[in-house]
């Protein structure tokens, strides 16, 4: 395996032109990548490009309309960001519950997005806040909504040579929360996770509502049927049954499909009743 570490986007693009090898991996935090090279799993790629030193891809910045997170920003930086805590509660909470302390210091938000895990903890928050993913590639840059960027387990719209540069979040004053169910208290892959973004009027009625759930489908999914039912004013008891329309969970070593569905509905219903004060408490 050949290892390269470009210091800028330009250097990175120059490097791409010279490479002849067939298989290539991008290294950011490496927390998802390196375990794949265990001898019982896959082979190392011919080329590894470490993008950690590329200028300008790290840190959280803001302007009037947006918060912009550099792709190399660590989960730990997101966890400790007051800005994120104040305006994007679900992402802040997801970062808090993300893996363990060592991994939070290595893992990057860009890496978590490109890994496109159906169980990714950062992803539901990005979905409900309708994050836009900024990409840079040999043919210039482009922007795609997160829900269009991720197309399957481990699959994204990244073209060869393209990397994620930034994540854009609109500052709309939407509140959000995040929930994760794992099989232990840290270092756990979610059996179910979800984020809820919402705005309520003074009577507690939703003026906007967006929910995305993880580990219940090949990608993070929006719980659209459930949201539609809630917004149309049916009872919570009835609306919650719509969740099964939105999800397509599977059995694996962590849990059965039935369990994922039941636990998701139980906790979602509880959150609507007790956190968002819908239905009878």
């Amino acid at each position, binding site marked *: 395996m050949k290892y390269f570490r470009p210091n800028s986007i330009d250097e990175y693009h120059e490097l791409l032109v010279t490479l002849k090898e067939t298989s290539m991996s991008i290294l950011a935090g490496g927390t998802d990548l390196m375990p794949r090279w*265990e001898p*019982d799993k896959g082979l190392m790629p011919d080329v590894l490009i470490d993008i950690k030193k590329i200028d300008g891809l790290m840190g959280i910045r803001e302007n009037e309309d947006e918060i912009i997170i550099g792709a190399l920003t660590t989960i730990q930086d997101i966890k400790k960001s007051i800005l994120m805590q104040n305006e994007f509660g679900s992402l802040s909470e997801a970062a808090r519950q993300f893996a363990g302390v060592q991994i939070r210091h290595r893992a990057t938000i860009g890496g978590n997005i490109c890994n496109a895990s159906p169980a990714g903890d950062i992803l539901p928050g990005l979905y409900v806040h309708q994050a836009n993913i900024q990409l840079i590639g040999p043919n210039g840059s482009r922007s795609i909504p997160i829900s269009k960027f991720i197309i399957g387990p481990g699959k994204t719209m990244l073209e060869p040579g393209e990397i994620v540069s930034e994540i854009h979040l609109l500052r709309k004053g939407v509140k959000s929360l995040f929930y994760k169910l794992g099989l*232990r208290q840290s270092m756990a892959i979610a059996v179910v996770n979800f984020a809820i973004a919402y705005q309520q009027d003074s009577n507690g009625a939703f003026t906007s509502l967006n929910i995305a759930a993880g580990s219940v489908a090949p990608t993070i999914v929006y719980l659209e049927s459930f949201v539609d039912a809630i917004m149309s004013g049916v009872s919570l008891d009835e609306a919650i049954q719509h969740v099964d329309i939105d999800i397509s969970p599977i059995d694996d070593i962590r849990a059965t499909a039935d*369990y994922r569905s039941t636990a998701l509905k139980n906790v979602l219903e509880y959150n609507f009743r007790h956190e968002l004060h819908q239905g009878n408490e």
Partner: protein
Amino acid sequence: MENLSTIGQSLSRPDAPEKVTGKTRFLTDISVENMVHGAPVYSSIPFGKFNNIDISKAEKVDGFIAFVSAQDIPGENQVGVIISDQPLFADKTVRYIGDSIGLAVAKTPGAALEAARLVKVDYDKKSPYLSIDKSRDATGNFIHKTNLACHHRLRNGDIDVGFAEADTIVEAHFKTPYQEHYYLEPQACIAFPIEDGRIKILGSLQCPFYIQKAVARIFGLPNEKVLVEQAPTGGAFGGKEDIPSEICARAALAAMKVGLPVKVVYHRFDDVQLTSKRHPFQMHYKVGVRNDGTLVSAKILLEENAGAYATLSTVVSYRAAVQAMGPYVIPNIHVDSNSYYTNLPPTGAFRGFGSPQAAFGHERMMDIIADKLKMDPMEFRLKNIVKPGSQTQTAQRLNESVGAEETIQKAARLAQWNSFNPDRSGRYKHGLGMSAIHYGNCLGAAGWHMDGSGVNIKILPSGDVHVAYGLIEMGQGAETVVTQMTADALGIAPSRIRVLPTDSAQVPDSGPAVASRNVIMTGNAIRDAAKKLLPVLKKAASELIECHKSDIIITNDKVTDNQSGVDVGFHELCDFMSRSNMSMEFTGWWHTPPLEYNAETGVGEAYFTYSYATHIAKVRVDTLTGQVFVDKIFAAHDVGKAINPAGIEGQVEGGVAQGIGWAITEDFIMDRGVVTTPNLSTYLLPTALDCPEVETIIVEKSEPDGPWGAKGIGEPSIIPTAAAIANAVSSAIGIQMNEIPLTPERVLNQLNKTEIKK
């Protein structure tokens, strides 16, 4: 004169600074000149026969050196430690996915692994037995001559009379799962050929003398031709009791074949697939009780999944049988304990050795009966608990070192057992659960013939003292307590003492470092050595000081003539002895007291003494998800005498953590014999956040045959935990949880079932 003994003091561990700063060199870090590497080749099917091993592709791997298999064995192709049912390399029959075919040897670990993967074996598959039920009910085509690996029984009293006297008879069925040791350091060794035909082994191990015998057997050599040294060992928990014997024997064969040192370090995924685990048990308890809560009769069936080879199942099965009803008086009891072969990885020694499983049975049972009788579970236990002079379930009369009752009372007081009255109306249901256990120390009647251990104490001219012992440090703190006990036995400062790495050439065969026996065995051997050593020291001192030897006192690192008050430093005495050409090396030996035990009926003295413990778990169950949170553990342990209280707290906290894992998070899953949870992301050990505060309470009921009164702690620390948690969860949700692990899914399913019934 004030005695500055360190017995009872929390002396810090001599091995700690190097370990916490990462300086300790474990086997992975050790390289020797010309060393090559071995990787295991093993069966990919659970049961069948093979005729041909094709290594043509493996040979082409760059760096390939050799392939070692059954035909290379000069001695006996047999590594069975108790029952001779396990070939070192499979001889035409494979019995589990992981059964050894050979060892690929290459210049690098990577090349060895690649070559191992490329060895092709053609199999004729047989229909495998993948459960206890399938194995038990088989009528032919057995895994060995029979599918029953072993059987133990206990017949004490008359259970029919007992059940007739009972007012209530309660029956229940329990299941406990596998547990993988997950020692931080995987199995590892280096085998060295020595020019004169001897073989040296450096290994991560628990039982150097098991390895010595196993390697000697493979080569047909006398034991002493095999030298075994222990490398710093990164955890074992029983997983390095018998397993290193086979790994070292294969490495030794390879080393002798290629004439070079051969290192074998298992990758974690191989370690988990190939090596032993805790036996899964299924248990049926039928217990009769009077209305006042007196236990009168019990009929217990324990069934154990032994895996493909018996390994240590016979003694695990024995321990479970003689402890099956726990620390309670019960006059009539029948126990049958059956281990069945299956086409799954062999199960063997794991901290507790059958006791955590039996404890789950008897302690769940105690709660279920208390519930039926509407008695407080603590009162019910206290009503039946063994006391000094009581008879155990095997009709053994107990001596004075019986702290069972006190552990219950002290744990209950601290946990505020009597005032616990939670609000159970909300999402989270709170529960408190108790579990009391006894644990037979050392090898007991089934292993008495090998229950002796030795030390070799050498006084150096500088005043330093080297202690060689036959048991080992595997992370449990043995070096610390050996230091303390030696210092106290000789009256000298602990700083003088250096505990040597265990080396078969330096010490007599001391049996295995298992069964929580290190403090008792080594401590008593130290006292035996000191008994021989002290008169020599005193005689020498009397010559040095010119006084009567009966007036010499050695204490607090000083050698004093009690008549004149003249004293010399211990190092001055040692220097004098050296110059006077005196003997300065002394051995000590101790064997456990004789036991009267009838193996046919199981009645008699099963172990010479018992440790006792009570754990109380405080839990919270999320009724929406089934998640169990352990909020606190109160752990009271009767250890006879705490040689090192901090060491005991460490053992207890570690045991509790491992118990929480077994009870809740560690779900070991196999699919047709393939482990599907082979790594840390799928086999979930509890993390720091899963482990609550543990309040350790030390109870000291001095054991007359224990050194300074001490008994074992290593295993008792894990035995009650899972049952205490399951009792707490059952109490919290009002459903009897009779199977672990208590995964969220298992708990939620039970909650949903009960809701539907309502």
